[in-house]
């Protein structure tokens, strides 16, 4: 009996090794995994430049910094110009779906997706090459009924909902700017209308959980007797998840601990906006924020959070003004620094405030996501405009 148990354990260990080893990402892949914008400095920018240089006709430059073999970590004018050329070259896939006709130079999810498809050499292949990973009780989920874990996004642009909102916000800013310049009275009719998302993720019962934990989602547009996909970034998705009246409940699948952009999609291809969700291992100590400096922050200032549980990379700071992603902590995981430049106050920062007008003082609450989980909300600083 004990002998059989030992054999089973050994077999299980061998199977585990086969399942986990292939999950490593190909080191030579030129995969851009974060959004990038002019002024960024990171190794991801170098990957972006290499990817652009690998596409005929899109080389940043033929000599000096940025040329093939001399890629840098700085997103400057050459990179931006090449990104715009790329976006316009593949406008049908990158710009048209979000209602744009001209390249923006911003490397968002759609640009990344197309770039990654091209540099991968074949479209539609998931970023990681993994064996089937859902293994409750040691078996792979392959049944046709009930939720099934699959790799990749299943052909869905997981970030389409986010891009729709971003595009709307860009439209608002450009509309207001042009209306100001027109020197005429602005009316409510001049303000672009926001089109309701077919699927709208209003909230989740929890923001983190370990494998097997139940998570509830409040989603408008979800109906009973229909099934949906729950996406974990574009790396995994749970297919065949039943919906209820405006809600979906799922169990955290067996996927590696990390923060995932979770979204819901339906069979028509409609996809909700994403929300961060942290899949944690059972023995995590969690994240704790104890301080934030400085206490008064202006647009573009650097903020340093002190605490514990920050991971070396892939920390996300979620503020009331949006998410700041791909943050690295200091060596011992006690400090996290980010630049605070919310889009909502960019115009106010550019034009300043009226004469003899008191400053806007807005308390900013934030929390940190990473593979250790999610911190409590922390009242970090006051934004002064």
């Amino acid at each position, binding site marked *: 009996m004990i002998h059989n148990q030992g054999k089973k354990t050994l077999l299980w260990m061998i199977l585990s090794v086969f399942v986990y080893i292939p999950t490593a990402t190909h080191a030579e892949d030129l995969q851009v995994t974060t959004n990038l914008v002019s002024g960024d400095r990171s190794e991801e920018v170098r990957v972006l430049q290499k990817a652009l240089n690998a596409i005929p006709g899109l080389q940043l430059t033929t000599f000096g910094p940025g040329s093939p073999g001399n890629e840098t970590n700085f997103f400057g004018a050459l990179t931006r110009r090449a990104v715009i050329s790329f976006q316009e070259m593949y406008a049908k896939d990158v710009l048209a779906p979000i209602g744009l006709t001209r390249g923006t130079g911003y490397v968002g999810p759609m640009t990344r997706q197309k770039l990654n498809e091209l540099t991968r050499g074949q479209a539609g292949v998931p970023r990681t090459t993994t064996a089937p990973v859902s293994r409750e009780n040691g078996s792979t989920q392959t049944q046709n009924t009930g939720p099934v874990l699959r790799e990749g996004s299943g052909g869905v642009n997981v970030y389409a909902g986010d891009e729709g*909102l971003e595009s*709307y*916000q860009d439209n*608002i800013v450009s509309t*207001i700017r042009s209306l*100001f310049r027109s020197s005429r*009275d*602005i*009316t*409510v009719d*001049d*303000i672009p209308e*926001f*089109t*309701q998302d077919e699927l*709208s993720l*209003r*909230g989740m019962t929890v923001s983190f959980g370990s494998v097997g934990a139940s998570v509830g989602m409040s989603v408008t547009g979800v109906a009973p007797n229909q099934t949906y996909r729950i996406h974990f970034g574009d790396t995994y998705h749970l297919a065949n998840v039943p919906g209820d009246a405006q809600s979906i409940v799922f169990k955290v699948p067996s996927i590696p601990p990390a923060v995932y952009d979770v979204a819901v999609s339906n069979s028509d291809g409609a996809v909700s*906006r994403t929300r961060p969700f942290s899949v944690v291992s059972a023995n995590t100590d969690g994240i704790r924020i104890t301080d934030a400096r400085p206490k008064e922050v202006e647009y573009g200032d650097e903020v340093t959070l002190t605490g514990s549980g920050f991971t070396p990379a892939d920390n996300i700071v*979620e503020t*009331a*003004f*949006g998410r700041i992603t791909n943050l690295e902590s200091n060596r011992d995981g006690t400090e996290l620094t980010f630049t605070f430049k919310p889009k*909502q*106050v960019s*115009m*106010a920062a550019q*034009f*300043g*405030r*009226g004469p003899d*007008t*008191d*400053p*806007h*003082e*807005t308390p900013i*609450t934030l*929390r940190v996501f990473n593979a250790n989980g999610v911190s409590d909300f922390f009242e970090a600083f006051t934004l002064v*405009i």
Partner: protein
Amino acid sequence: MMYRNLYVSRLLCTVCVATMVAFPFSVRAQIPGTIPFGGPVVWSMPCTCSPPLWWVIVGPPRGGVFSYALGSQAFRNYNMPLIGIWALGLYVPVGTCWFWFIICVPLPVQGTITPVVGSSLL
């Protein structure tokens, strides 16, 4: 006579209770002069000539363009007017938001969000 009054009182009381049980949603808690709204906050920016007001756009199902006095929210989660949250509340159909652009320029609003507003977590 006393029994008759008692009978009438009981009958009235029963009718009242039955009405409240049968039609609980017909009661409207709207304050006169206010209009309900609700939806996701899809844009907000500070009114830089008229602090502490913010200019807020709320999406469908019952959205609009509003001004909102920062910190006036009376119900949880006290995070108005931040993008991504869902808000539900009342507004009054008057208001203003002035934004500094060489001069103070008025941004149009359909009304001002009252403190009677609640919002979702991020």
